[in-house]
């Protein structure tokens, strides 16, 4: 970090604003303050692990239950059924089972640990500016103003944008505020306790791949456990099989898989429908684009055909995280100096400098730490 003083003396054309320098007063100040990462003061109700790389909701108990169910069922399958089936039928069974299992686990962890598309809360200046605009629009009256909405026309459909009182922003279309995580999430689908996280724009595809592969895995295990029992019964008789099996293990698997098949396969089917019509669970439940609401009511986000909708949802570009979890907090937040008073100039300029430095620093800091932007 070079001293900005000499720079501003040399290049007087734009010495008013220096886009990449610091004053000598800045450097000793920054060295003294210990650097904290931004996730430590994140305003939402989230838990962070691995120094900000992993982000989950506050209640994670059900997520651990999901993990245990998957691991135990697959563990039993590989230990007992595969040994028999690999010999009797084909060794491809444990291989396919293994691949499915790894895929399920990978997508589950990816869904649970990534940022669903949280929108950072408005900075104080932004919030003040919005309030001013709303006051001007409403006309300053003494009593409490009505709920704030803004209407916008998207592809011929009128969409209402609501003002979020917690995040102090007008929510973009399709965004919603999750009351459990206390965050506004882009393209909010739902909050899933089974994965311990919200499902939104950035992790919807992983969530879908998780439930799809889990459906295949449960059907796979269900089918082969039944096959195993049948084959053994042909060899030894059904009652002997019951007696021989340690702690009736096949039946644990059968029971778990039976209930899972109905719920997970159903859920996969539902989400396949949502993807092909480019809707979120939130919109579908509220009936936002249903023709019952109005004659011309239609989904403005749909691309018109199922193939494009699916490609857009599953293979489209993955946007980076908008919350800078692993960046460092700057010592001051940029504040507006009062217009006439020059006394507070130092405070404002120092914070403005630190803000400008943070732009450069955060950008360069982010590129090596790619995990933080996922």
């Amino acid at each position, binding site marked *: 970090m070079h001293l900005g003083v000499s720079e501003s003396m040399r290049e007087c054309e*734009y010495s008013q604003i*220096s886009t990449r320098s610091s004053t000598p007063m800045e450097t000793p100040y920054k060295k003294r303050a210990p650097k904290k990462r931004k996730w430590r003061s994140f305003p939402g109700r989230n838990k962070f692990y691995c120094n900000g790389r992993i982000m989950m909701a506050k209640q994670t108990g059900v997520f651990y239950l999901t993990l245990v169910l998957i691991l135990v069922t697959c563990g039993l399958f590989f230990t007992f059924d595969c040994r028999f089936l690999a010999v009797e039928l084909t060794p491809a069974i444990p291989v396919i089972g293994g691949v499915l299992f790894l895929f399920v686990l990978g997508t589950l962890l990816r869904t649970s640990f990534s940022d669903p598309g949280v929108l950072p809360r408005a900075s104080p*200046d932004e919030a003040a500016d919005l309030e001013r605009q709303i006051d001007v629009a409403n006309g300053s009256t003494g009593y409490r103003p009505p709920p704030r909405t803004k209407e916008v026309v998207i592809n011929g459909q009128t969409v209402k944008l609501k003002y979020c009182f917690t995040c102090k922003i007008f929510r*973009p279309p399709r965004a919603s505020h999750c009351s459990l995580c206390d965050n506004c999430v882009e393209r909010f689908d739902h909050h899933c306790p089974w994965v311990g996280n919200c499902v939104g724009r950035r992790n919807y595809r992983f969530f879908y791949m998780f439930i799809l592969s889990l459906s295949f895995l449960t059907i796979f295990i269900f089918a082969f456990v039944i096959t195993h029992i049948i084959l053994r019964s042909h060899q030894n008789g059904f009652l002997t099989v019951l007696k021989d099996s340690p702690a009736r293990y096949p039946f644990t698997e059968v029971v778990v898989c039976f209930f899972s098949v109905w719920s997970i396969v159903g859920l996969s089917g539902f989400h396949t429908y949502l993807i092909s019509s480019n809707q979120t669970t939130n919109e579908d439940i509220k009936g936002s684009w249903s023709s019952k609401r109005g004659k011309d009511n239609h989904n403005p986000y749909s691309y018109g055909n199922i193939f494009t909708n699916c490609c857009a949802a599953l293979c489209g570009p993955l946007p980076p995280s908008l919350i800078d979890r692993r960046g460092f907090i700057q010592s001051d937040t940029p504040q507006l*100096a009062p217009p006439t008073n020059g006394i507070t100039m130092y405070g404002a300029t120092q914070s*403005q400098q630190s803000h400008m430095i943070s732009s450069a620093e955060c950008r360069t800091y982010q590129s090596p730490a790619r995990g933080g932007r996922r």
Partner: protein
Amino acid sequence: MAETHSLQDLQQPAVSSKVFVQRDYGSGTTCRFQTKFPSELDSRLDKQQFEETIQTLNNLYAEAEKLGGKSYLEGCLACLTAYTIFLCMETHYEKMLKKIARFIKDQNEKIYAPRGLLLTDPIERGLRVVEITIFEDRSVGSGR
């Protein structure tokens, strides 16, 4: 430069106000900013220059979010490698964000800073606004 600079001159001028250019949701959820010229910038900046900056920004973001053969290929390749490929290479979106950051820095140096303005990269504000900081006009200063 043989000028003497007082301590006051070495400090940055005070922030007089901030203008926020909001998102334009007319074409859906894609990232676009409104090209309407804010009245507070009337005295400092050309309307055309402002519109050009915002339009270029909009085009860059549109390219980042574009759906097409290239983005599908990237998505499928990533899925096949279980997303481990992003440990070695950047996503197209990230590359575009870097390009946008360079563009903004360039605009600041060439156009905005000489007029006492500063553009903030929208990614610093969660892609909600383009924040333009207006600095006080310094009569005693090393600039114009």
